[in-house]
């Protein structure tokens, strides 16, 4: 009987539909196992089943779940509560909704020690734990309400709750997914530090191969409710066998694979609906090496090497090198993108918003605090090419896009399209200008009218902005759908009937309806699964080649941005910290903030360990921007008072293409950062 967590042939159903099929999993004490899969893979279901905490409607139909030899399925309500109280802990994905909004943080943390009388729990023990998870001044934190903490602090509180019980089993369900990369890196470091060398069995659920590579000993890959591959982390990343694992790895943009070097290889087709399986291998319809037998025989997980199990009939052929499990590379037309097109130019863009003022301050006649979203931003989107814009949440990247498109009115500065200055306010912009500049928003489920058919959504800009005559509208809609690789029958559907990737394609098609010269893409692939994200990124690339549009591509994922962009700008607290060609941005010298961002990006490669300690602290409030360099409060390379007091100069490269706003001379930066070069070796 195993000492840690053990699942044997566990089948979970919601209603009549099995969503997890005979899954087996072991996590030994002190071991960290990653559970990887895209949405619909059943990874959260498996994680919750391991805690016997399935949501209402979820039932374990078959199989055995044991923790330290105790059968979880046989437990009654009282022993289940004892299990939850003493032996297992759960860290959820979204920290804020996972805390009671009306109770102070201290009470909620104390519940982990004393669920019945939290106010009598040992405060010193709580404070020690809050301190240990990187929350200085624990006494203050305890009195705060959850919404008063930053996202990173909230997640630290939840981790503190989880560790306080000294659990036998810790289940973490995408605990860093909605956090900024720098915060994510700090949280991962915290988990590594607190869990490694202990006796807790950790099950870490993630869609991100990068995060799992950085943290786990072993990895389990789930696809559509089936375990398809299980391996030590090294084997999985360097010697993957299952075509799905290989496809996932190929679909993730890696920092070291810049634009034009390796096109992403999306996995064609889509995840089958639960219950849609027909007895064969569940991945066969999307598999590049499937044989006729794959469609009739469901392969069991079988060992191909010690600790390395694969559920694939072609495993031996793949390992022998007889067939390649990689998806075919997409056709990329040769040559650079069209040199024609329109550039977008922003000069000195400044935007502030009135913040709430305290009455006392207002009575004393103090000025209303202003939230400085943009502080004199100069950016250039090159004609027919892509400018990537990165930064943490609160850096002002969305405000920049909204100001450019006219949804926010800047206080100062100009935006010009080629040489045409754009009126600041949307209502002052003539219709032909609207047609030339379009935007794709982050969440397509909110940006598309849920009751309007795709056809109706596309017809409107075609008619109003592109001037397509009514008789030709249906043909134009079909063309537009075809350009985003959707069939004409999608015109009759409504957004809720589409998958996330299909919805984002429709949102992109809508933006392209007026044949815009410049397209602003605000986190437009962020919510998508990696295999879908890969195909949308390729689609954007194709559309740019075909139509010569210029892109402003906003993202928080540097690897994704670097993959698509010709040039990248890094925004920090509403000002450009560094900007230049993508290759120059991935090589020293870096702005120290860019350096921290790059070092924080989880890489899908277990050997790419972070070379730098994660950034400390949070982004300063945009109400209270430091007087000197905005990054000085967190900068690991801070020189001294000069950084805090004086605005740093913009230092340009000799070719005049790359700029860094820093007090440290370029040569000094380059010398100290020589170890961090992410350009692909030629």
């Amino acid at each position, binding site marked *: 009987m195993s000492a840690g967590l053990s699942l044997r042939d566990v089948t979970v159903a919601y209603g009549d539909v099995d969503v997890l099929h005979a899954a087996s999993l072991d996590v030994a004490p002190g071991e960290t196992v990653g559970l990887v899969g895209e949405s619909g893979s059943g990874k959260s279901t498996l994680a919750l089943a391991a805690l016997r905490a399935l949501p209402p409607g979820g039932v374990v139909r078959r199989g055995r779940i044991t923790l330290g030899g105790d059968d979880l399925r046989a437990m009654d309500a009282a022993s289940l509560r004892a299990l939850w109280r003493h032996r297992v802990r759960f860290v959820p994905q979204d920290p804020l909704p996972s805390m009671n*909004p009306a109770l102070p943080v201290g009470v909620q943390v104390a519940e982990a020690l004393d669920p019945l009388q939290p106010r009598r729990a040992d405060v010193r023990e709580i404070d020690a734990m809050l301190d240990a998870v990187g929350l200085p001044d624990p006494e203050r934190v305890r009195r705060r309400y959850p919404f008063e903490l930053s996202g990173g602090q909230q997640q630290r509180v939840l981790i503190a709750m989880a560790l306080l019980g000294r659990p036998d089993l810790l289940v973490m369900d995408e605990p860093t997914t909605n956090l900024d990369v720098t915060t994510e890196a700090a949280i991962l470091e915290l988990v590594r530090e607190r869990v490694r060398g202990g006796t807790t069995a950790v099950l870490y659920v993630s869609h991100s191969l990068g995060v799992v590579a950085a943290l786990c000993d072993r990895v389990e890959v789930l696809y559509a409710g089936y375990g398809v591959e299980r391996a030590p982390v090294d084997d999985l990343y360097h010697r993957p066998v299952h075509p799905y694992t290989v496809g996932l790895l190929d679909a993730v943009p890696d920092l070291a694979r810049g634009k034009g070097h390796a096109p992403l290889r999306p996995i064609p087709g889509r995840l089958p609906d639960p219950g849609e399986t027909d007895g064969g291998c569940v991945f066969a319809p999307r598999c590049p090496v499937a044989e006729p037998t794959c469609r009739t025989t469901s392969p069991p997980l079988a060992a191909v090497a010690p600790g390395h199990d694969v559920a694939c009939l072609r495993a031996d052929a793949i390992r022998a090198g007889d067939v390649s499990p990689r998806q075919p590379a997409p056709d990329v037309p040769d040559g650079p993108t069209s040199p024609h097109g329109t550039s977008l130019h922003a000069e000195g863009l400044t935007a502030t918003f009135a913040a709430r003022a305290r009455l006392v301050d207002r009575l004393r006649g103090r000025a209303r605090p202003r939230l400085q979203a943009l502080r004199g931003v100069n950016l250039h989107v090159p004609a027919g090419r892509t400018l990537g814009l990165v930064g943490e949440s609160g850096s002002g990247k969305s405000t920049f896009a909204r100001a450019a498109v006219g949804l926010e009115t800047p206080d100062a500065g100009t935006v010009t399209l080629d040489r045409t200055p754009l009126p600041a306010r949307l209502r002052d912009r003539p219709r032909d200008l609207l047609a030339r500049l379009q935007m794709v928003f982050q969440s397509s489920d909110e940006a598309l009218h849920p009751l309007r058919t795709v056809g109706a959504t596309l017809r409107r800009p075609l008619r109003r902005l592109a001037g397509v005559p009514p008789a030709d509208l249906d043909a134009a809609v079909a063309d537009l759908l075809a350009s985003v690789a959707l069939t004409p029958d999608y015109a009759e559907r409504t957004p809720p009937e589409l998958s996330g990737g299909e919805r984002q394609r429709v949102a992109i098609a809508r933006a392209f309806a007026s044949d815009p010269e410049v397209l602003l893409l605000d986190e437009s692939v962020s919510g998508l699964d990696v295999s879908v994200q890969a195909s949308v990124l390729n689609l954007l690339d194709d559309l740019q080649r075909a139509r010569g549009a210029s892109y402003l591509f906003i993202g928080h994922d540097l690897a994704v941005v670097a993959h698509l962009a010709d040039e990248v700008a890094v925004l920090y607290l509403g000002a450009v910290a560094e900007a230049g060609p993508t290759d120059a941005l991935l090589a020293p010298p870096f702005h120290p903030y860019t350096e921290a961002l790059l070092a924080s990006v989880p890489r899908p490669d277990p050997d790419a360990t972070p070379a730098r300690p994660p950034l400390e602290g949070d982004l300063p409030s945009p109400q209270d921007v430091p007087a000197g360099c905005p990054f000085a409060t967190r900068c690991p390379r801070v020189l001294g008072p000069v950084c805090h007091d004086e605005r740093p100069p913009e230092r340009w490269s000799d070719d005049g293409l790359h700029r860094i706003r820093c007090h440290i001379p370029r040569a000094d930066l380059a010398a100290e950062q020589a170890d961090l070069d992410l350009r692909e070796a030629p």
Partner: protein
Amino acid sequence: MIAFLLRRTAFLALTVLLASMLVFAVTNLLPGDPARILLGREAGPAALAEVRAELGLDRPVPVRYATWLAGAVRGDWGDSFATGDPIGGLLAERLGNSLRLAGVTLVFAVPLAVLLGVVAAVQAGRWPDAVVSLSSLAVVGLPEFVTGIVLIQVFAFGLGWFPANASIPPGTPFLEALPSLVLPAATATLVMLAYVARLTRASVLEELRRPYLRTALLKGVPRRTVLRRHALRNALLPTITVVAISVGWLISGLIVVENVFNYPGLGRLLTFAIDRRDLPLLQAVTLVAVVVFALANLVADVLYAWLDPRIRLA
């Protein structure tokens, strides 16, 4: 929070001022000359003119409004046309009665409604939920005069536990008046009960689905404690707001109930003023109703803001 309070209070004052203009304007636009109402059809022009001058009706409307408002603020509402008594005293007595009835109703209705709502939510889909939901729907469909008369038939004429006529004389001590209050309060309770219970059920159900409840359960907090410590606190926020607003209705809107039971509250006073074309009384009662409603809304807003730290501390 202080700024919020000041802002809401200023808003309240403005609301009441606007409402007072509206009340004054509407009652002055009503057909019928107050002097003629007072003196009757046969009065001669000289007598009418004399009464008009006495009432100040010969002065321009804005001046009359200002005089009326200044008097109202000082508590001098003038005399009732119908009884000739000062309106202030009458109002104070009836307002007191209405407050008693509202208080007794709240003591009945709120705990019962919340209890039923919580039980229905926790037992959602099972028989207790079905019983609560169905019966509250059935009750909410019945108008007050029907439930009131049924209650009178059963508890006054049938069992004889409580009086059917609740017309307590002025100055009755609370405990003596209590038996008369039971049936009107029960009728008002039935009107409120269904609404508050269903609202409570819906908001408890919504809270029960929130991720923070899972967090609490997975810390090993017993289910009952989770419900009490976590879910109820957040679920009852909308209920508290609705209850606070309904206090306005209980004090000055129980027209049908008060008439069925002949209870001397503000609602009954209002119908009396309308019946007798008693314009000063009508103006006064309406304005008091406005103030009561506005205050109830203010209390609701402040309570909500105070109970929800996201608003209190923001």
